[in-house]
């Protein structure tokens, strides 16, 4: 075995070299650490800028212009917004959409909560199966529900008019999709079928997280079932209720596919199925007025922001009370 003599000079150089390498490696590692997050978010950022930010800026630009292809653009200032304020079609679309949102919140959500309470009952057997059955309509999507609706609601021969006729003697020739009085009820009915089960899943999750001891304590104190629901269950699930209300309202204001397929792309008799997004589509892609369509889009965005702000305020005040 041969022993190597250590050379202090070489050691010093080697030390300083390895320190330099280490320092470089450290600096590089620090740089990587700094850059890595940006590198990881780059794909998202590119897509977000391309398909999120750019369209938003472009649509804002279009809202103040009249265009006819990329080479023909005229600045029109606030003309589109002025027109919108006096546009009877926009007013109808806003009314219809608000009506739909109203029914979504005040009809759909109580039913969803009732269904969740039912599914949460200890006496109910096969809850998982029921849960799937009620959730399933949501899986088909609005387009499919629309096409199904056309067949089911066809006067004289459709399943729904036939059922109403047999069960209650209702005139089967009623045009559910061809009479201005019945279009909104039909839309609401189909959306109930699609979303009651879906929303009930949220409520069910909230109900299952309510502390059972609170119910037991209330029962010991002599609280009735109703009192337990009102004073124990409702306060406990309030945050979830508010989230579902906000989501349902925003979803309702974005209603498009269902009336579009159900009414074959039209606004329905006497505009009874015209919603804000449908009007936006008609203005942009049927009339070819992308500037006005952008104005409708921005107005819808502002409405949704206002509604969300109000609901957020309400939610804060509710949390404050809690």
């Amino acid at each position: 075995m041969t022993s190597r003599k250590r050379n202090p000079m070489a050691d010093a150089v080697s030390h300083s070299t390895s320190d330099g390498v280490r320092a470089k490696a450290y600096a590089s590692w620090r740089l990587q650490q700094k850059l890595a997050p940006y590198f990881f978010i780059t794909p998202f950022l590119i897509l977000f800028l391309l398909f999120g930010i750019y369209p938003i800026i472009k649509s804002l630009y279009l809202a103040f212009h009249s265009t006819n292809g990329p080479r023909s653009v005229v600045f029109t200032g606030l003309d589109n917004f002025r027109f919108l304020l006096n546009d009877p079609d926009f007013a109808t679309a806003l009314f219809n959409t608000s009506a739909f949102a109203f029914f979504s919140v005040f009809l759909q959500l109580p039913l969803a909560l009732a269904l969740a309470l039912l599914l949460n009952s200890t006496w109910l057997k096969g809850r998982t199966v029921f849960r799937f059955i009620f959730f399933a309509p949501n899986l088909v999507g609005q387009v499919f529900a629309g096409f199904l609706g056309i067949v089911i609601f066809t006067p004289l021969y459709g399943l729904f008019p036939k059922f109403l006729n047999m069960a209650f003697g209702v005139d089967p020739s009623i045009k559910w999709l061809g009479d201005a009085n019945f279009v909104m009820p039909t839309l609401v009915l189909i959306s109930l079928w699609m979303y009651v089960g879906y929303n009930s899943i949220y409520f069910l999750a909230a109900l299952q997280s309510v502390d059972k001891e609170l119910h037991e304590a209330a029962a010991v104190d002599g609280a009735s079932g109703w009192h337990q629901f009102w004073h124990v269950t409702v306060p406990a699930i309030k945050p979830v209720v508010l989230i579902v209300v906000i989501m349902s309202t925003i979803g309702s204001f974005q209603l498009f596919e269902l009336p579009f397929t159900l009414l074959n792309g039209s606004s329905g008799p006497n505009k009874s199925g015209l919603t804000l997004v449908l009007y936006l589509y008609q203005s942009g892609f049927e009339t070819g007025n992308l500037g006005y369509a952008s104005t409708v889009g921005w107005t819808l965005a502002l409405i949704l922001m206002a509604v969300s702000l109000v609901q957020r305020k309400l939610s804060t005040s509710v949390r404050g009370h809690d």
Partner: protein
Amino acid sequence: MALLSGALLLTYPATIIPENRLQVWTFARAHFDAYREAIPGFERDHAGLKVDLQYVHERAVTSRLRAAFASDLPVPDMLEVEIRWAGGFFRGPLSDIGFVDLTRELKKPRPDGPPWFERVVASRFAPYTARRKVNGIEEDHIFGLPHDVHPVLLAYRRDIFEEHGIDVEKLTTWDAFFSEGRKLLKKLNGDGQTKHFLIELNDASSEHFEILLFQRGGALFAPDGTLRMDDETAIQNMLWYVPLVAGHDRVAYSLAWNLEMMGKAQESKLFLAVLMPDWLSGYYQKYAPAAHGKMALMPLPAFTPGGLRTSTRGGSMMGFSKKSKQFDNAWELALKLYYDTDSRIEQFKLLNILPPTRESWKHPALSAANPYFSNQPLGRLYADQAESTPPQYASPYAQIARRKLGEALSESVRYYSTNGVNGFEDYVRHRMKQAGDEVRIQSTLNAYD
């Protein structure tokens, strides 16, 4: 992945379609099936050329095309556009229009006969024509090749009319038709529940109203783009139409556009007559087998004795992208699919759609007995009316006009159902003017109209 695909797209902008590939879009399933049969022959004659035929829903064609034109992106070399949407692509200066101007090509003399412009029914160019003033002179520019004529006849239940001894040949005016028809309905329905209607007419959208408006000599727009949907002819049509579909004495009804229900309606003899464009007769043959051999066709009864006996519904054009580098091949293919007699006769046998060129109307296949329509010579009956097919003039606002007309109809129906004839005429006049004004206001919004 995002970076890679983004880089790839940037490297190959707009030229991703190979040069030897001709891309064709059609919005009608029936056309797609017919073209698929015809294209292999064309490919054999053009070695190395591949035709990429795609079936795209009519609304998707419209919105994708509009988005592509608006952002200067490439579109297929040639594509079909439905008649209702066509006008929307012809707004603004000629340089802004994304389709090739076909006027010169269509009016050019051909070695095999007169120019195509003279061989096709003139009224069929109207929906695809943009009128522009150049140096103070108005010029028409044609941007679409008409695929069809789509004359409308009246299809009626021959079995029922004959059973009750009604000779439809004598019903040459609408007055005579409704007079006899009301008597027949009374016999069929008795005093109980209404099980039969004389004719299918829609009371909430304008599709059938338009057919009758055109037959009456009315229009949505004049050739120069002026709105006509609220003129006196349209008002008279509304006053005549609404009592047919509303009130206690109504004789008409309609179902939503649904092929399955069309079959059911014929099974239960719901409609004794239907306004039948040639293309719809093909759908009836396929989807309403219950009426096989029981239906027959006749020219539409006229509004006045000796008046027009037909109208039109539907249609499509072939447009050619200005960006395409294969116009010659695309033009040749379009002529084969649209104007080659043999090819169109094959399509006629499949779809009952009358070819738009006069020379093809002499073909014996058009005189062949059609067993579904009581062995009548279906093609001949349509061809006999084709020359009189009324025009539909192009406008970017045609679709809004249709919607507004539908709204006016729907509200007039509601008024008539509640109030009957009391104040009905005043109401219709007011409502039609309102509908027209709404279209006019919309048209002020775009700086290019």
